[in-house]
């Protein structure tokens, strides 16, 4: 590498074709900043996407990129990572791409623990097909395909990831220019499949669906920014999350004056899957929305590592086909 690259160096000459005001712009900036901050090499970085608005992402990143087919990005990324484990691979997907048509592949890339980052842009709607309800849409979502409101129960992406066996689970907000790059850096540093759900505002088909916790003026009150080893406090430290032993559940309590002492507040342990489950499934707005690195429990090795470590020749070609052809009973026919 020569001079360190700036976020701009990670942009391409392609005209960005998302709707004006789309949350994807902010995410693109955050990713470009992340790569610049960590000194990434565009030639050793690959973005793999499926289909949907989010999946146009690779065209706008100055790195290797592969815009594949609907829902299958994790499978392409797995093959790529096996072919070249040295690459830094990012999967870009959305709620429809990753959790509907591609749910199976997301499940398997997570449980296998392939060393890559998965950014799931969740906007709770199908954007590119013009606004149908998605598998993360809340019950009652009115859309062209559900004019009287959707009736299916939505999937919680992070709960899905945890259930699938993911070892890194984080949440971020598209416009959170300060925290999102930090979360992405943590994902990048993780050896294994790092799952990041990014709340993304679809300005055209599902505008402001997350604004009750993403808007700047309500963020402090409605976001619980989790950090390993720190108490689970929010609302400028005036509220906290406590574990109620009798109900075996979390509860929100006031902290300090008129409330409970801080010592009663849970301290975030990112290695605890039970706590992760509780934090991920806290219903908003009764509870704050947990943001940041919720779960991080590295395995001894990622899938691509194990794959080659357990490969008897570590992927080297040590034998000859000419010899293999004779690994059978061979008989010789003499010239008559």
């Amino acid at each position, binding site marked *: 590498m*020569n001079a360190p690259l700036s976020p701009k160096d990670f942009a*391409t*000459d*392609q005209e960005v074709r998302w709707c004006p005001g789309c949350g994807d712009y902010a995410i693109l900036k955050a990713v470009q900043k992340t790569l610049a901050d960590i000194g990434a090499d565009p*030639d*050793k*970085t*690959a973005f*793999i996407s499926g*289909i949907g608005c989010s999946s146009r992402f690779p*065209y706008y*990143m*100055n790195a*290797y*990129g*592969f*815009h*594949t*087919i*609907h829902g*299958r990005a994790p*499978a*392409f*990324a*797995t*093959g*790529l*990572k*096996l*072919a*070249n484990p*040295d*690459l830094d691979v990012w999967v870009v997907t959305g709620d429809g791409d990753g959790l509907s048509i591609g749910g*199976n*592949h997301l499940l*398997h890339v997570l449980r296998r623990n392939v060393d890559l980052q998965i950014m799931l842009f969740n906007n709770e709607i199908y954007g590119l097909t013009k606004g149908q309800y998605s598998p993360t849409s809340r019950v009652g979502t009115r859309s062209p395909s559900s004019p009287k409101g959707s009736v299916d129960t939505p999937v919680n992406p992070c709960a899905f990831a945890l259930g699938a066996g993911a070892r890194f689970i984080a949440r971020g907000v598209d416009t959170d220019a300060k925290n999102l790059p930090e979360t992405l850096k943590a994902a990048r540093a993780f050896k294994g499949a790092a799952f990041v759900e990014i709340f993304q505002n679809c300005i055209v088909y599902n505008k402001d669906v997350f604004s009750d916790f993403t808007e700047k003026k309500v963020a402090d009150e409605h976001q619980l920014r989790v950090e390993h080893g720190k108490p689970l406090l929010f609302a400028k430290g005036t509220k906290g999350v406590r574990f109620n032993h009798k109900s075996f559940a979390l509860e929100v309590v006031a902290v300090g004056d008129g409330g409970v002492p801080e010592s009663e507040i849970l301290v975030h342990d990112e290695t605890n899957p039970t706590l992760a489950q509780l934090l991920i499934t806290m219903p908003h707005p009764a509870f704050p929305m947990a943001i940041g690195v919720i779960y991080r429990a590295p395995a001894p090795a990622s899938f691509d590592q194990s*794959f*080659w470590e357990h490969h*008897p*020749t570590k*992927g*080297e*070609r*040590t*034998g*000859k*086909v*000419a010899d*293999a*052809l*004779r690994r*059978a*009973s*061979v*008989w*010789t*026919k*003499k*010239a*008559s």
Partner: protein
Amino acid sequence: MTKITPNGHSIVVRFAGDSGDGVQLLGSQFAESTALAGSDFATFPDFPAEIRAPVGTTFGVSAFQINLGSRRIATAGDAPDVLVAFNPAALKVNLPILPKGALIILNTDEFNERNFAKANIKADPRSTGELAEFQVIEIPIKSQTLEAVKNSGLSRRDSEQCKNFWALGAVLWMFGRDRAPIEAWIRRKFAKAPQVLTGNLAALNAGHAFAESAELSAEIPQFEVGAAPMAAGDYRSITGAEALALGLAAAGELAGKPILFASYPITPASPLLHHLSKMPELGVATFQAEDEIAAACAAIGASYGGAIGVTSSSGPGIALKTEAIGLAVAVELPLVIVNSQRGGPSTGLPTKTEQSDLYQAVYGRNADAPIPVIAASDPGDCFHAAIEATRVALRHMTPVFLLTDGYIANAAGPWAIPDMAAFEPIAHNPPPKVPEPGATPDEQLALKHAIWKRDSKSFGRPWIPPGVKGLAHRIGGLEKDIETGDISYDAKNHQAMSEMRARKVASVAGFIAPQSIEQGESSGPLVVVGWGSTHGVIWRAVEAARKQGLDVAQIHLRWLNPLPANLGDLLAGYERILLPEMNMGQCATLLRDKLEVDVVPLNKVSGQPFKIAEILDAIRENYPSAAQAAE
């Protein structure tokens, strides 16, 4: 006693029993001994879809057929001359295919009321007269086996399991085969289970001794099947699945690239996954994906990463992979797709053979997405077809379909071991030279052009895996500009790209061997055209017809898309074209479509390969009467 030299210098033996009787193992070991004796042979394992169907039932019958001879053997034989039936169900299922005078060896221990009931047999066939036209030898194989292995320490149940080796011992005597290689194999195979080893050896020797013993040798005939005339050289026995695995490994070696094989288990394609999983030292890695789609995608991802991505399945799985294959066409990445065809539609006949995925391979994608298609014609040919398919995939930067079928995958025959030094290395289009950093916009544009510059003859683009310095670029399923690779919805560009994709596949014809004639003249009253696994049976039928004085030729297709450039002219030289295939007429449609020739189809979709007689009959039926009169 004198040994019998079979009519036509070949004999067909069929072993049949419950799927748990070890019939396949018995058959393959007999094939091995036949190979070592220098006879030619072809085998046909015929097993049910159920792993262990209820014991004694007709639908649980597993069979293994071998045709062996001191002449060239091209098929596993139309009808068995010898049937070894381990139970009444096996006899019942196979009786209809036995010719008069066939020799039947029955395991009488299983001929009881209980087993008759299981096989839905009303009366003991030995007493009804229905076996009158056959030569029947009754042997209590089970009790003989139990007696032979009583000192092995095996349980009664495990002792019974040795009966396939008892039968093998007897059959080895009947054909005068050497037991030593089989014994050596048993010692290797069961080295970790000493009791089983002892039991199987004891059973093998007991069966042999039983057949040889004086009082029975008059009853059990001995056959003389000597060495067949074959070209000098080293031979081994090989199944299609083994040959295909070795061929893919060879392709990787010739290309100097690793092979990443991604697949999902499916009958009858899984043996390929199993064989490749045992070839790590040949630069092969296998990935069992979560489903068929993921397998195709992972293989394409591996190709994107610079390995040779290979995926494999059977018809239903190929259907699932189709969208991903279309992407490989669009992004111009190499990929080898192996289809071990089986009976369909839908789940169909998973263990039975068919050639009914030709439409799927040639036409079966959304939009205009042409793909080269090659078909292997026999087990050993799978090796060469795999190398050829990979060569085309890398040269033209395209997915390639390699069609085989359930018959070839599991069938075996002697195979002349090829000389690896005789193969040309497999070339690919390397990445272009990288410009200096800080390039001007003009240089940037030139770089894009270089990244997408296609070879003028093969239309193959450079293969640039992520990681290559200075060439970071984006690919995807959206239509791209033919020169810059940028997304383009331009009308003229899409026309140009579609034409380029068509020309690319058509250009393969300029690199492959021209169509040759297998037998007969380059013009005449009748030609029999085939493709894939029907090669052997057509060969025998045409050979027989020619011996009878009919002027018939044989042409066998290897590349189905594109067709060899000279095929049209060649076919024009014949008055009539007969096309036998194991489907409802797919290759016939293809030839009518591509060459506008008239074809007489001969279609068989019974799940069983053609018989020589069926094709011979069709040759006689379709032989132009004018030509007949002239004979």
